[in-house]
């Protein structure tokens, strides 16, 4: 708008509207103020209603003029005619009026808006002020509320009543002239008085208790001196009573000492001690229990072991991280870890079992040393038999009483080569132990019966028994002790028999003479012990190996029986549980060719005679005669075999090497023509089974 450009404002756009005389005039002259056509000022003077009316009138007039022009034109008047021009001029004027009115309307609107805006701003400012004040009021109100609610601790202290206070308290404290007026000061004074009183009484109490303490201490001193003077007297009495204890066989002191040390035993060994002692007292006078080892170390161990466990796991981590870098020190670390894992508790138990030896006057003692491996939570046992001088008589008996293998398979398949605790597997993996068997010679055997005696139950054992601890130990104590005794005696008996066998004599006891005829001509030529390796390579035992009846824990022997030119070889598998388990024989005969139990039905029958008929051959309980009776029966069967075998060469019955001496009813029977191997007593003839 041209008028805008003229006002004293920042000119935004100078509109170049040509043809408006006011504008030109305005820009051209310097005195713009006096010549300015101030439309805005004019605005105030005019009435909007009037303007509106004027607008309507102008519009109407314009419309009228247009209509007239239209009429004239349609009546055929020319464009340049005077009337049309006149009217055109008039309509132009009207147009200008309309424009002015439009301007005015816009200006009014703008002004109105500006005013509204200003007022609104003022209102906002006031509103904000109001809000601020309201907030402050609220805040102050809250503060006042808090102050009013404040409870001071002093209100919880019970104070004497005001009258008493005034009567009792000294003047410096009560200060009645101030306090009577001022309640604040009164309360303060009362508190002061309270403090004073308490101080006085407490001081009193302290003095009295101090005095009594002194008195009591003195009394204790006196008594202590008295007791220490008693001690030497008691010791001398104990010493004097020792011979009396022994005489009356009530070894109190020994038992007491043992009980003292026993407190430091690890739980499984403690259970074993208690149960063994109980069993010994109740049933077995030849059983005694001793504790050995370092008690101080055991005491030191009773500190909680969590630190060492943490260290272990930390150093494991370290180990894993360091493997790539430092291989040289790894071996040393592992070794130490292994040693730590396999550590034994410093205390161990020794149980001694006494048995009658080879000759009745000498007692053989079976020493059992029980150790507890703390980190693996298993018990192990080492054995010793004494006196060892009694035990060297037979060369082949070397293995019989070998302490390493003596207790193998006390219960069936309890080889004691692996740890019975399945958790140990994980522990071993951490430190690279492949198998426990490598450490057995050092640490002892972890037999299952040892764990049971210590009350330790591991999942692989028979699942029926849910007992653990003392009950488990008690259940097995008697049977295990009996088995141990039985084992030792069986081995001693075998040892004695082996001495005879090595001198080519089969010792047959008086009770078993009836099993055999009076005259047996085949004799034992050789008796030797062989290893598992040598046994497995023999051709005649392959069926035994295939049936899984020969194990590394068994003992193997070779017996050679001879008569004339015939040689019978017997390979024997002796299960450690002899005589509860029957020795197994496999035969091979060298006589005019080689035959074995596999190729010759009669040799097989002979094998069956000694292997299957244990009930006949075991003799009186506990069956120590089994092996020797088996050997004697073999000799007898060999006799029958050789004497009943037809000897034909070149189509003619030749001279018999072995004349028929045994009485047989029939020499052949059945489809495989078996010989009569069964001896009948007292008639003395041989028959078939």
């Amino acid at each position, binding site marked *: 708008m041209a008028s805008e450009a003229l006002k004293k404002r920042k000119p935004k756009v100078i509109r170049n509207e040509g043809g408006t005389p006011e504008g030109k005039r305005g820009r051209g002259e310097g005195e713009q103020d006096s010549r300015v056509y101030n439309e805005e000022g004019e605005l105030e003077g005019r009435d909007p209603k009037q303007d509106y009316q004027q607008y309507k009138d102008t519009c109407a007039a314009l419309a009228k003029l247009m209509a007239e022009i239209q009429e004239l034109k349609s009546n055929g008047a020319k464009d340049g005619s005077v009337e049309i021009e006149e009217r055109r001029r008039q309509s132009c004027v009207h147009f200008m009026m309309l424009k002015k009115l439009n301007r005015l309307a816009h200006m009014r609107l703008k002004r109105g808006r500006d005013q509204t805006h200003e007022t609104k701003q003022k209102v906002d400012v006031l509103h904000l002020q109001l809000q601020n004040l309201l907030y402050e009021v609220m805040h102050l109100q809250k503060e006042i509320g808090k102050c009013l609610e404040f409870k001071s601790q002093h209100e919880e202290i019970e104070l004497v009543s005001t009258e008493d206070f005034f009567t009792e308290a000294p003047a410096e404290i009560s200060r009645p002239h101030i306090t009577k007026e001022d309640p604040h000061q009164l309360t303060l004074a009362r508190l002061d008085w309270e403090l004073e009183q308490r101080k006085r009484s407490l001081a009193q109490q302290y003095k009295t208790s101090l005095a009594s303490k002194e008195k009591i201490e003195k009394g204790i001193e006196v008594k202590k001196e008295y007791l220490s003077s008693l001690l030497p007297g008691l010791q001398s009495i104990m010493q004097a009573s020792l011979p009396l204890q022994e005489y009356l066989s009530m070894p109190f002191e020994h038992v007491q000492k043992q009980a003292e040390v026993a407190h430091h035993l690890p739980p499984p060994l403690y259970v074993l001690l208690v149960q063994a002692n109980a069993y010994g007292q109740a049933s077995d006078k030849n059983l005694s229990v001793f504790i050995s080892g370092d008690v101080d170390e055991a005491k030191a161990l009773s500190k909680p072991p969590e630190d060492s466990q943490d260290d272990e796991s930390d150093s494991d981590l370290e180990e894993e991280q360091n493997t790539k870098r430092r291989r040289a020190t790894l071996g040393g670390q592992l070794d130490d870890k292994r040693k730590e894992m396999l550590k034994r508790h410093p205390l161990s138990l020794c149980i001694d079992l006494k048995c009658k030896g080879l000759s009745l006057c000498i007692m053989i003692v079976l020493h059992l040393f029980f150790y507890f491996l703390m980190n693996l939570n298993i018990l192990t046992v080492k054995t010793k038999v004494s006196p060892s001088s009694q035990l060297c008589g037979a060369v082949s008996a070397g293995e019989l009483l070998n302490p390493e293998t003596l207790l193998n398979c006390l219960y*069936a398949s309890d080889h004691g080569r692996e740890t019975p605790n399945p958790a140990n597997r994980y522990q071993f993996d951490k430190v690279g132990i492949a198998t426990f068997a490598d450490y057995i010679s050092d640490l002892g055997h972890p037999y299952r019966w040892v764990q049971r005696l210590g009350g330790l139950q591991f999942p692989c054992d028979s699942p029926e028994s849910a007992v653990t601890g003392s009950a488990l130990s008690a259940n097995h104590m008697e049977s295990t002790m009996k088995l141990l005794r039985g084992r030792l005696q069986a081995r001693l008996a075998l040892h004695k028999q082996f001495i005879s066998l090595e001198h080519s004599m089969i010792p047959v006891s008086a009770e078993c003479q009836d099993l055999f005829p009076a005259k047996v001509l085949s004799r034992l030529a050789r008796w030797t012990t062989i290893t598992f390796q040598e046994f497995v390579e023999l051709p005649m035992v392959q*069926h*035994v190996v295939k*049936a899984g*009846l020969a194990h590394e824990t068994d003992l193997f022997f070779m017996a050679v029986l001879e008569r004339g030119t015939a040689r019978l070889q017997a390979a024997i598998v002796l*299960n450690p549980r002899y005589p509860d*388990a*029957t020795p*197994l024989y496999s035969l091979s005969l060298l006589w005019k060719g080689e035959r074995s139990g*596999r*190729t010759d*039905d009669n040799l*097989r029958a002979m*094998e*069956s005679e000694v*292997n*299957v008929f*244990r*009930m006949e051959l075991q003799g009186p309980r506990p069956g120590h005669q089994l092996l020797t009776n088996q050997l004697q029966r073999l000799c007898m069967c060999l006799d029958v075999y050789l004497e009943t075998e*037809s000897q*034909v*060469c070149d*189509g*003619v019955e030749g001279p018999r090497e072995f004349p028929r001496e045994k009485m047989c*009813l*029939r020499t*052949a*029977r*059945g*489809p*495989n*023509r078996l010989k009569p191997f069964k001896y009948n007593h007292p*008639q003395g*003839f041989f*028959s*078939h*089974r």
Partner: protein
Amino acid sequence: GSRVRLCVVKMGPVEVQFSLLHMSVYSQSFSPCGRFLAAGNNYGEISVFSLSAALSPDASEASQKPILTFTAHDGPVFSLLSTDSHLLSAGNGEISAWSWVELIKRVGVEHLKIDVSLRTSLEIPEINTMVLSLKDNSLFVGGGDNNIHMMDLETGVFKSTLQGHSDYIHCLAVREREGELLSGAEDGAVRIWDSRTGRSVHCVEIYKYEECSRPQFGKWIGCLATDSDWMLCGGGPSLSLWHLRSLSPTSVFPILGCQRQAAFYQDLILSVGEGGSLNHCLLSGEVKAQIPCTPPCLNTLALNGTEQRVLTLGGSSDQIDVFTNLSYRAFSLSF
């Protein structure tokens, strides 16, 4: 299978293993339907196996075990024979009859026991062989008393005794068409008997023939088989094929071990014995094949005649080999 043991002694697991190690199977017999096999051993036990279970496609180790085991006699069971309803088993001087229907139902209860009265003063002789003669419905029993006893199956009464051998009877064979019985014994003789008259018609001493005799093994005849005009016999002497009308050996088989059982099968001759192999022989005298078996010595050979054609072999072992194809062992049943 269930083990019904009549002995009082309780056997531990190792003792059971020992007894299995020393077991010998002496006799076999198929059930009338052919689906079951009964086997007798040296402990006097009889085990019944289900062949149909063992041969089925989903057979497991358990199906190779017996469905029933029971103690039938005091002594070894040297002979088993099936009629169309019963299993006959021979013990020391006695024959027991067991119903097949009951056995299949796993019930080992004796139906009948017949005492063959062979007892002497000191011991009871064994019965080694039993054969049926369907023509005159009789059972021939040969045993340790050197005689053959003939029993009528209807009445269960012993009608006659055929005497003639000087040592115990090993084997018997029946020639149905001619009504004759052949017997082989420990004395080395094969006798041909007329079953009606009960008299020995012929007596052939095999060991006297040079081509067959093997003096180093003995003269005893362990096995006999007959097929109309032909006879197989062997034992101490070599296994040989004889023409019965002319009573002369036509072929001698070069098999080393002493044979304990032989049979004609289609155009082959099958035999088993010491040496532990099943021998396939041709009538010409040639040994076509020798197939190794589990037991080192074989005692018994049995062929099934029904739809499941199998051959089973037993001997000095607790295992019984089963052949579905004659050329190789398929699997073994075990006691």
